[in-house]
């Protein structure tokens, strides 16, 4: 018997080897008791304020709104959180749980490196040993973050199996966890994996939505009409969506990685490509997974490492079925354009992941009225992506 529901409708669950089941049960217990513990909540909130720099601001994107000529655009500035992305909210929350469980070691996977950096940071702050698994392809394209993790005292282990990206880093992190589960916590970085991870990650990321809703009401005087976020595993999206999910009039839009275009097959649009995106089980959870006819997990492609993953968090699968949220995609090219647009109009260099959300804003805002409002979750900053952008644009930057 579990303390919390393990599923989101037909999605989610705990598809893991028996060896890990007791650790999931222990984690769930620690989480449930921490949630009810005022002292834990105070400690978390204090760190969010004094270490992460929360609340992150809400920024009115005046010039972008004018340029697009439609809806008014507001940015939730997770790029201004310490370490440069929303990932720190969850990493710190889980690291506090690790302390509570009396474990000393964490393993983490990382794609873009942001979750790895956040985990390394939390480990340094709380005095934990930290090992980060990262695919070799991602190590090459997110090099600055590899240095950051090392500087923070983490060990970065390159993963050369499979597609050498996020999926394979998760495999290796789970293998390490299975082997060292007695003293090691798997600090999973997105709203993915077996229960209780999707719930825990959503809870720690819900601070984004809670703050954004308050800020909209306080600073703008009303709720947005549309909330847009990029969806890799789905943690920043579920975090901001959770603030508005009960406001039925607010439209929620998730943006997946369209890669080279859905029709090319080179993408990571789990919802966007019915020929490959089907319900299956990967990394402990039942959800939409890009796979072949035989149930082998498909290779994915995205210019952004953080969205380059074959599965999507199970709660998003349910929100999509229920039509509480809608999902679309942006291609590499659209994301790179949006990246430059935001640089020029707002003086903000966004992460390539977040640029996918901005790309959807660029498509949508002009079709909306001037008195309508879009809130976009700017999940991270783009410093880590400069190498990739230089390579992709090859001097053709506008």
């Amino acid at each position, binding site marked *: 018997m*579990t303390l919390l529901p*393990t599923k989101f409708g037909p999605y989610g*669950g*705990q*598809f*893991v*080897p*028996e*060896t*890990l*089941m*007791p*650790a999931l049960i222990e984690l769930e217990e620690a989480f449930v008791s921490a949630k009810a513990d005022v002292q834990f909540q105070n400690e978390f909130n204090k760190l969010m304020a004094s270490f992460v720099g929360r609340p992150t601001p809400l920024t009115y994107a005046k010039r972008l709104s004018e340029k697009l000529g439609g809806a008014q655009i507001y940015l939730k500035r997770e790029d201004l959180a310490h370490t440069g992305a929303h990932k720190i909210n969850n990493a710190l929350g889980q690291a506090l749980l690790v302390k509570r469980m009396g474990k000393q070691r964490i393993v983490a996977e990382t794609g873009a490196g942001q979750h790895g950096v956040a985990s390394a940071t939390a480990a340094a702050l709380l005095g934990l040993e930290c090992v980060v698994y990262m695919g070799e392809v991602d190590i090459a394209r997110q090099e600055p973050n590899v240095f950051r993790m090392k500087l923070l005292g983490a060990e970065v282990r390159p993963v050369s*199996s*499979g597609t050498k990206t996020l*999926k*394979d880093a998760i*495999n290796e992190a*789970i*293998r390490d966890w*299975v*082997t*060292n*589960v*007695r003293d090691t916590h798997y600090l999973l970085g997105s709203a993915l994996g077996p229960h209780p991870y999707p719930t825990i990650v959503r809870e720690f990321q819900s601070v984004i939505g809670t703050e954004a809703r308050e800020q909209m009401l306080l600073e703008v005087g009303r709720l947005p009409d549309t909330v847009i976020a990029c969806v890799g595993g789905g943690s920043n999206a579920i975090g901001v969506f959770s603030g508005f999910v009960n406001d039925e009039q607010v439209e929620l839009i998730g943006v997946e990685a369209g890669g080279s275009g859905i029709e090319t097959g080179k993408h990571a649009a789990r919802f966007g490509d019915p020929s490959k995106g*089907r*319900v*299956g*089980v*990967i*990394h*402990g959870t039942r959800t939409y*997974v890009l*796979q072949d*006819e*035989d*149930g*082998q*997990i498909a290779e994915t492609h995205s210019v952004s490492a953080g969205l380059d993953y074959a599965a999507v968090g199970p709660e998003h699968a349910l929100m999509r079925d229920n039509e509480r949220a809608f999902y679309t995609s942006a291609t590499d090219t659209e994301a790179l354009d949006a990246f430059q647009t935001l640089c020029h109009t707002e003086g903000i260099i966004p992460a390539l992941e977040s640029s996918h959300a901005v790309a959807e804003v660029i498509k949508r805002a002009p079709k909306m009225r001037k008195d309508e409002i879009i809130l976009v979750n700017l999940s991270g900053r783009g410093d880590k992506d400069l190498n990739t952008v230089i390579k992709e644009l090859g001097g053709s930057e506008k």
Partner: protein
Amino acid sequence: MNRIESAFANKPIFMPYFPLGYPDLETSIDVIKALAKNGADLIEVGLSFSDPLADGPVIQHATQIALEKGITVKKSLEAVKELRKRGVDIPLILMGYYNPMLAYGLEKFVRDAAEAGADGFIIPDLPAEESEEFEKVIGDLPLIRMLAPTSSTDRMERIARSAEGFIYLVSVTGITGERKSLAEGLGELIAQVREHTSAPVCVGFGIGTPEQAREVGKMADGVIVGSACVKTIGGSEKPVETAGEFARSFREALR
């Protein structure tokens, strides 16, 4: 008596694992037949998956090659049928991850597996919490339950009580692969499991040599050998002959 029950007539039994399609489909069929003819009492026939998260490097590598050579669930089931045609009459248990079975269609998978002559299933990423869906369609064949050193007493009791066929006891906290020495406290772990069930208890993960098998065989009803089997046979110029020798050496050790 079904095939699994008969296999346990002379304990401890030897249960090697080998993936279909490695190093190629035809060789894997010959290897499995050679294992059966030379002393294996039950064989775990591996179905390949792109993301085998409970497996160490040896099995990862072998199943990756099997996939590159084009193995599918369908071809694997046909190979089981072929093994039966060629006179292999020991139990063949299909061991694989859940997603390819789901993609094939669970009902169809179970039906086709039974028809092909499989005797049961081991699914490492399907713990008791999630197995209901599979059990609904499984028919007469057993889903082999796994227990681990980390399993709590009440889980052990609950899972062992509902065991069918045999219990797969994971001997080490970890993934598949050989270990230099046997896990500490294995005897107590086996004794603990036996408190809750009369089903045979078979031990796997980390057993690589006939000497280790002999030690485990003194305590358990069956010895499961995966990575060592795959590595020895896969690394051989003459895989079929090596399979025969491999099986004989373990059979001998377990006398």
